[in-house]
């Protein structure tokens, strides 16, 4: 069967599976819609949380980022897993005992204030939308690269699928679909990782291969790296030879790595679509253990990601360094051991714009080293023209300051001629490694599973914030009893209506992405760290915290973080003015500290919370009597 047919088969089968599950797990009540009835087994809930958490970015981009950054990529690995320890120890069991449906529910009730509730709702909506835009784009990209469908058509197909199972099934449909999506995703990531590990190091498990010896000789362009060298030694040596910093050395410095890791961890523990997963377990004990399962399932992928990154960087150097472009792209080039080094993949991904070659020294061979291969902003601006060797030509400005082609050749120094997009590391890996077609088809299905599962979780968080918190608890609240005047059916209608609106908005953002999708991810984490994390922690561990302190703290954290990111990312603030040299991606950590300080000081100056709220805090702390979650 051809590659295209296989891709359609795999993706089609996975979609049929998701829709089948959605029909089987329809939500009949608000409780099922919001928290899957509160009866999801901890292991299944852990799996669903893993799928919810691991997005298109984790699946497609993370290995590439780490491959290019080496040591500093550890910030993402530790940040995106370490947050679960905070969740399990500091949030999950207590929020489960609290026994309502959403994060704004907790903030509003614990701080006995609609202002706090509405601030929380706005945060949920903002954080979730910034995130979901990237997911829908991810769906479109996978469709367009693997299935030759237009990106916009891809986004619309993705919207339709999510529509079916999120609107029909609510949290119940999403949870069971995510369990299936986790399986698809982990299989799709692990199979190529194992193949690669076997090829590069003769070791089965990528996690072990990471610390094993390289199974072949290769020429990094400066020296020969011997077979039997430890993988990380080989990598350190060859990237240093090519003018990069050693793979295991820090590039951006200890302090910035520290701040970024902290912001990612605290942000993870404050993201509403993740927190809400722990409302769905049957018991407090279940919530704790479920966080453990979730992290275990996440770690299976996250511990192989850095290994894949390292294998891929080594493979890239081995395959492209000093290879003749024409012979390579026709599949006539050879490795040192005489086997064919087929560069058909290079052509494919050059077509999609993720790779580009600029024959700066005019020798017809590809050279890879540190530095930009293209003038201007470093990214290739492709034209329709084809160069002397069959490569795609670009419209980038001619270099003005660099040496001529003759001088470059005469100097004997390697000058970088290659543009590599980070995403290529996962997307093209199976082809680079010469793996069978069904593995490539698997990557397409896995990428879609990663993007769809995260999108669905986020959309539900948005819909719930609108229908349950805003409509039920603010607009349609009975002034006397404090309860929602909406009937169960009416609230479900609002929930379904708001998920439809949310999907349409998310699809719009996927089709017309705001030019800054990549930067706004910093927003989501920074805001979650600076707004929800401290407010919830103090709500549980500091009984004296009152509404004045909480509102002042949330607003301080929000405004500070928001302002800092806006100023430095969107208004062209100068890097030299960074507060203590902290990049905007790590500023959430400072926002969180300010939040804690302001909240504490204000709470000291204002009256303590009412008695029933203090009793509620005591109730949350003791597991007994958790029962099942209830609406009112």
């Amino acid at each position, binding site marked *: 069967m051809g590659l295209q047919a296989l891709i359609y088969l795999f993706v089609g089968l996975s979609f049929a599976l998701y829709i089948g599950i959605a029909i089987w797990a329809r939500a009949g009540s608000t409780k099922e819609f919001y928290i899957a009835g509160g009866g999801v087994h901890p292991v299944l809930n852990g799996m669903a949380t893993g799928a919810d958490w691991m997005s298109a970015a984790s699946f497609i981009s993370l290995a590439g980022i*780490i491959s290019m950054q080496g*040591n500093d*990529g*550890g910030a993402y*690995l*530790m940040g995106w*897993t*370490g947050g*679960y*320890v*905070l969740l*399990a*120890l*500091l949030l999950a*069991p207590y929020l489960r005992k609290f026994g309502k449906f959403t994060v704004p529910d907790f903030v509003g009730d614990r701080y006995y204030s609609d202002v706090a509730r509405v601030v929380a709702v706005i945060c949920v909506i903002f954080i979730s939308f910034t995130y979901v835009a990237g997911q829908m784009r991810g769906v479109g990209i996978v469709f367009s690269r693997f299935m030759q469908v237009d990106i916009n058509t891809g986004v619309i197909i993705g919207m339709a699928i999510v529509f079916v199972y999120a609107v029909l099934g609510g949290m119940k449909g999403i949870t069971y679909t995510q369990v299936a999506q986790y399986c698809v995703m982990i299989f799709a990531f692990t199979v190529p990782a194992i193949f690669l590990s076997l090829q590069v190091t003769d070791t089965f498990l990528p*996690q072990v291969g*990471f*610390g*094993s*010896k390289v199974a072949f000789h290769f020429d990094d362009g400066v020296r020969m790296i011997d077979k039997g060298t*430890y*993988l*990380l*030694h080989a990598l350190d040596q060859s990237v240093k030879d090519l003018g990069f910093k050693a793979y*295991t050395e*820090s590039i951006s410095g*200890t302090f910035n*790595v*520290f701040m970024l*890791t*902290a912001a990612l*961890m605290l942000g993870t523990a404050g993201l509403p679509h993740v927190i809400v997963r722990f409302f769905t377990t049957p*018991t*407090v*004990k279940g919530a*704790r*253990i479920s*966080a*453990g399962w979730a*992290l*275990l399932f996440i*770690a299976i992928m*996250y*511990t192989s990601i*850095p290994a894949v990154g390292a294998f891929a960087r080594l493979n890239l150097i081995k395959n492209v360094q000093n290879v003749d472009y024409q012979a390579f792209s026709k599949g006539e080039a050879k490795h040192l051991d005489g086997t064919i080094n087929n560069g058909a993949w290079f052509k494919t991904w050059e077509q999609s714009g993720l790779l580009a070659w600029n024959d700066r020294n005019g020798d017809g061979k590809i050279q890879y080293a540190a530095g930009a291969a293209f003038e201007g902003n470093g990214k290739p601006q492709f034209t329709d023209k084809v160069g002397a060797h069959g490569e795609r030509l670009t419209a980038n400005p001619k270099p003005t300051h660099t040496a001529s082609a003759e001088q470059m050749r005469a100097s004997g120094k390697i000058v970088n001629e290659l543009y590599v997009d980070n995403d290529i590391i996962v997307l093209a890996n199976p082809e680079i490694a010469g793996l069978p077609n069904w593995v490539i088809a698997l990557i397409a299905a896995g990428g879609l599973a990663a993007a769809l599962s995260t999108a669905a979780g986020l959309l539900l968080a948005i819909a719930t914030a609108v229908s349950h918190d805003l409509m039920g608890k603010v607009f349609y609240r009975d002034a006397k009893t404090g309860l929602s005047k909406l009937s169960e059916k009416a609230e479900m209608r609002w929930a379904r209506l708001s998920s439809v609106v949310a999907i349409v908005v998310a699809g719009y953002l996927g089709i017309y992405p705001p030019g800054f999708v990549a930067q706004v991810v910093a927003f989501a984490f920074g805001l979650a760290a600076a707004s929800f994390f401290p407010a919830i922690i103090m709500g549980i*561990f500091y009984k004296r915290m009152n509404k004045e302190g909480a509102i002042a703290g949330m607003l301080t954290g929000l405004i500070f973080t928001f302002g800092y990111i806006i100023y430095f990312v969107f208004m062209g603030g100068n890097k030299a003015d960074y507060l203590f040299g902290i990049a905007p991606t790590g500023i959430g950590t400072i926002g969180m500290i300010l939040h804690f300080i302001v909240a504490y000081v204000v709470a000291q100056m204002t009256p303590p919370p009412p008695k029933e709220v203090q009793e509620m805090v*005591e109730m949350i*702390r*003791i*597991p*007994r*009597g*958790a029962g099942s979650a209830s609406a009112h």
Partner: protein
Amino acid sequence: MNQEVAQAYWKENIATIIKLLVIWFVVSFGCGILFRDALNSIEFFGYKLGFWFAQQGAMYIFVILIFVYAKMMEKIEEKYDVHE
């Protein structure tokens, strides 16, 4: 339930959390970031130790920490008879 038991339970709970969070901090921010350079002088299987903590070790320990926490809390809750 009486107030003293609830307070004693809560105290032990907090002590457990602090113990585990110290380990959490040491393996990630400590070994993986702050003391990375010092640890990198130790090497096994081509891994520099600091690098290993940042890209592998910290994650394994995180998983173990959560399961250990769940187990410890189960025991504490039975001891104070506050389990579900």
